[in-house]
């Protein structure tokens, strides 16, 4: 029995050590995510001052903004890895781009659901046709399209190439979409940071700002954990496919 185990270990020496290293990093990121999330919860619900008119409902603002930040960052990462993929043609870049886009879509959905909840208590309406909301919605559609390109049939490098091209075009489009919509109509959103042209009602209390920054940090760590995990899943799927292919080739011979 023990002999057998030993032999198995020596037969596959490389893969386990490698995955052990990445597992360590994953665990570390997981721990960091849990801790930072707990800290940010403390900051949101206990440390930060309560908003004057909206009371506790305003707390969703922290999640909303952080998710939006995470979504945009995820798509930026997709954009970067798409460019990298087109230059280097390494599959790993494509995997990163894909996983990041998937995470981005999930968090865009969170933004698009927390947004109306906030809007309901802040502006007494579920949905407003407002630049940032519409931009997020368009962004959502662009990345749904990105994922649909990935679902095409065909060899992976064709799909990866086309998706990378679309990832670049899509991300380049987002700022233009934002400006176009902003020009079109600016009515509701409080401009929290910096000065808005027409809406002076903004500004944020210090405690709230701290809570927001903490939450954003927590979400960034969460993102890197999810990205890491997603990429390792994809890698596992690939290596299973490769083993299957090898087995098939062996049986064929």
């Amino acid at each position, binding site marked *: 029995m023990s002999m057998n185990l030993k032999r198995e270990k020596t037969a596959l020496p490389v893969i386990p050590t490698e995955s052990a290293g990445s597992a360590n990093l994953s665990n570390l990121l997981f721990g960091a995510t849990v801790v930072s999330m707990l800290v940010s919860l403390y900051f949101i619900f206990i440390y930060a001052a309560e908003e004057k008119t909206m009371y506790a409902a305003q707390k969703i603002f922290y999640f909303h903004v952080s998710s939006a930040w995470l979504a945009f960052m995820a798509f930026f990462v997709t954009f970067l890895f798409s460019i990298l993929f087109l230059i280097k043609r390494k599959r790993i870049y494509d995997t990163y781009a894909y996983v990041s886009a998937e995470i981005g879509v999930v968090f865009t959905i969170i933004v698009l659901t927390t947004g109306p909840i906030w809007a309901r208590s802040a502006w007494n309406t579920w949905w407003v046709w407002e630049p940032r909301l519409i931009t997020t919605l368009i962004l959502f559609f662009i990345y749904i399209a990105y994922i649909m390109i990935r679902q095409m049939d065909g060899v992976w490098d064709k799909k990866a190439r086309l998706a990378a091209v679309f990832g670049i*075009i899509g991300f380049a489009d987002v700022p233009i979409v934002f400006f176009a919509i902003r020009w079109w109509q600016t009515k509701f959103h409080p401009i929290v940071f910096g000065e808005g042209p027409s809406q002076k009602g903004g500004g944020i209390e210090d405690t709230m700002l701290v809570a927001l920054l903490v939450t954003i940090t927590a979400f960034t760590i969460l993102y890197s954990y999810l990205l890491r995990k997603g990429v390792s899943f994809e890698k596992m799927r690939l290596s299973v496919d490769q083993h299957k292919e090898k087995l098939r080739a062996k049986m064929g011979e």
Partner: protein
Amino acid sequence: MNLLRTAVLLAKKDLYSELKTKQILVTQIIFAALVIVVFSFAFDPANNTTKAVIPGVIWVIIVFAGILGLNRSFISEQRNDTMQGLLAAPMEAASIYLGKFLANFMMILVVEIISIPFLFLLFDFKFLGSLPYFLIVIFLGSFGFVAIGTFLAALAANSKSSEMLLPLLLFPITTPILIGVVQATRIILTNMEKLASALAWIQLITAYDVIFFVVCFLLIDYVLEV
């Protein structure tokens, strides 16, 4: 120069083949007419407030009729694998893109020349705005829409269900241009006092056209790569 020469040859080939079969153009024009008829059911043409939706309707026609043509433009090269013939021929991918773009652009212009007067006629719309500005907006808007549309049609042609995929890819990406042209058209047709604002929109559309034409030109190599 080879790039331009082969692009023109390809565009000529597409247009000439369209002249022979008249499949796409006729479909596009009938479709445009049907859209107008459907709109006349949705918005009563006798009602004065309907005039307000005319600028929007113009672009709905262009976008939907345009998508029909864009869908065909690369799918038609799949019969007998003629796309392989083009790729094996000494022409750059950019040249194929440019040729297809020119053909699609010409076709959408023909659709516009026929369907927009028809729309004005049926809705009894009195043209009060500035005709040159109106033409510029139509031209620039169609240019941008067809430029990015041709590119994404080349991309979507790799999918088996490209007819369904193309609108999903195209509409979100063309949001800025659609907002811009509808706003500019509205101002020019109904409210000439705000011309400055229309000019700002025209600038935005032009910037979009330039940016995306260049980006498409650079990236088409990756799309048509085999």
